[in-house]
């Protein structure tokens, strides 16, 4: 394989990886705030893609406007989901396992809701960044690949600034680390948990709208994407910001390389096998999550 092909593969893998990473980041944020693992993240991602399809393709809004509308709509949906569904269960001290199963039910609901609203056929929208490859240092790169990296990079920096530099962000982190202390200090835990859902769902929506030019939208696409995001978040370290990013990129690149160099039909088997091995050898992930229990 030539170096150019290799670089192209890496860029392709990086792109899918960043999409997994955004979804993984959402999972980690919610995990930190509530110790809930959201199994519906993949389907929230998918619905984000479809909202974008509606705004950008059906309503023919300009890309930035459609982008913004999608993120806001999905963020608000996430906020309401927390307020109306998940937070009341936390508050009533439900068995965590039951709430987890609630996210599985949500996943089925969203998937079938998409099927009902947008139909079963694969759909996609015109690539907003054009489909003419750009040549950089002898490597042909699709423009949306470059844009995706730029958008995710800006997003990650903005998110970090938000979490570390604003009052709401700091309150959210306080709730994640010491919920009781935070509530004693006057932080409104319910608001902050719901804000976390808002952020997480917004992130899922962005990964959904970025993925559509790469793979066409189908109602059940969230399933497989979600498992990759789960793999990313567990390999990186559940609850770790950097872990979600690194984990996502590792998965994205590893799957592209395996598909090209070994055999494409078994790339998912490869990823899942690596995940299981990884969990058995280093259950906390690269950026070690604390999963021990105090006796």
């Amino acid at each position, binding site marked *: 394989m030539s170096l150019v092909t290799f670089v192209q593969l890496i860029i392709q893998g990086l792109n899918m990886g960043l999409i997994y990473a955004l979804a993984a980041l959402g999972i980690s944020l919610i995990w930190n705030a509530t110790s809930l693992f959201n199994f519906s993240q993949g389907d929230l991602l998918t619905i984000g893609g479809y909202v974008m399809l509606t705004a950008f393709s059906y309503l023919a809004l300009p890309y930035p406007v459609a982008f913004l509308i999608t993120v806001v709509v999905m963020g608000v949906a996430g906020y309401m989901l927390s307020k109306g569904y998940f937070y009341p269960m936390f508050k009533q001290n439900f068995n965590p*396992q039951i709430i987890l*199963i609630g996210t599985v039910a949500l996943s089925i609901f969203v998937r079938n809701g998409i099927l009902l609203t947008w139909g079963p056929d694969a759909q996609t929208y015109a690539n907003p960044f054009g489909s003419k490859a750009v040549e950089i240092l002898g490597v042909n790169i699709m423009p949306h690949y470059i844009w995706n990296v730029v958008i995710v990079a800006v997003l990650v920096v903005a998110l970090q600034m938000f979490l570390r530099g604003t009052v709401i962000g700091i309150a959210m982190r306080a709730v994640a680390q010491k919920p009781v202390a935070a509530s004693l200090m006057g932080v409104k835990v319910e608001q902050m948990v719901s804000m976390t859902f808002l952020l997480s769902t917004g992130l899922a929506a962005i990964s959904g709208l970025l993925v559509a030019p790469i793979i066409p939208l189908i109602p059940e696409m969230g*399933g497989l994407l979600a498992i990759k995001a789960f793999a990313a978040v*567990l390999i990186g370290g559940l609850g770790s910001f950097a872990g979600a990013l690194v984990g996502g990129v590792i998965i994205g690149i590893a799957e592209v390389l395996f598909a090209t160099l070994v055999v494409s039909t078994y790339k998912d*088997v490869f990823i899942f096998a690596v995940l299981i091995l990884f*969990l058995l050898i280093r259950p906390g992930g690269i950026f070690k999550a604390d999963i021990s229990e105090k006796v």
Partner: protein
Amino acid sequence: MGKAFGFFKKNILLIIVLLLALVPVAGVPSYQFYIIERGLQNAIIVLSLVILLGYTGLLSLGHAGLLAVGAYTFGILTVTYGINPWIALMVAPVVAAALGALLGIPSFKLSGPFLVVTTIAFGEIVRILILNWEKLTGGPYGLGGIKSVIPSAKGMYYFLLVLVFLVSVATMRLSKSRIGLAFKAIKEDEVAAEVMGVNVRRYKLLAFTISSFMAGLSGALFACLTNYLNPDSFTFAESATYLLMVVLGGMANVVGAVASALGVTALPEVLRFMVRSRMVVYSLVLLLVIRYSKSLNMKTLRKVLGKPEGSTLGGGE
């Protein structure tokens, strides 16, 4: 009155089975008849989750994979190798149990979402292997021409009914036994269990093995009923549906699990008048059941369904 109710409560499983035994006599149309058969077959995999999740507290979203192992083992043995279906029916659960025991090993170290993701990955690996191992499984074209252990529809129905009854009774006996108690102790407090001498690893492995055996049995029966296998029947969504059936049945309640399997299998048929939206309605119902599981008067439900063999649905931590 109270006495009659007591009798009803005590023998509810028997009453359900006897009522179901009347179905073929009542002359139910063949499609509805098939749906009840599928409901009975689903009851066995839902009972397998009662043991794994309801008793032991281990959450699996990979049971569709184990169902597939049972179904394909049965299909391949009978169709490709011409082995007697009764022998295949006994081999299929054993193969599933062996693989399920492997799936149990991660549970030594992992819990919560970590374990769930492992089981999802397991289910997906099985599905992808079936999809791509065309020579053996027929891949996306499926595996057809599978013959049932009992060719007559009525005969098969009664066979399923007897099996569900026996598996239910065995599950109840397990629940009351020292093994069942060890399972429940692991669910509630693993440290307390091991300090009282429960070999936690061995019992987790046992729970996975028993549960996978039952899932494999259900899979072989699935093959008998459908006569045709296709990887699409064994997706994550199927695993999730079985999980929701067990939640709806009250997690650790045998009669509840059987009723829920029958009801949920029939639900899409009952909602047939809204062909397109029935799955949405169905999942919405489940979301609401989960949300209000604590406030629903489970006591009333239990009075009707009999005593639960374990902890409560939505019980707090």
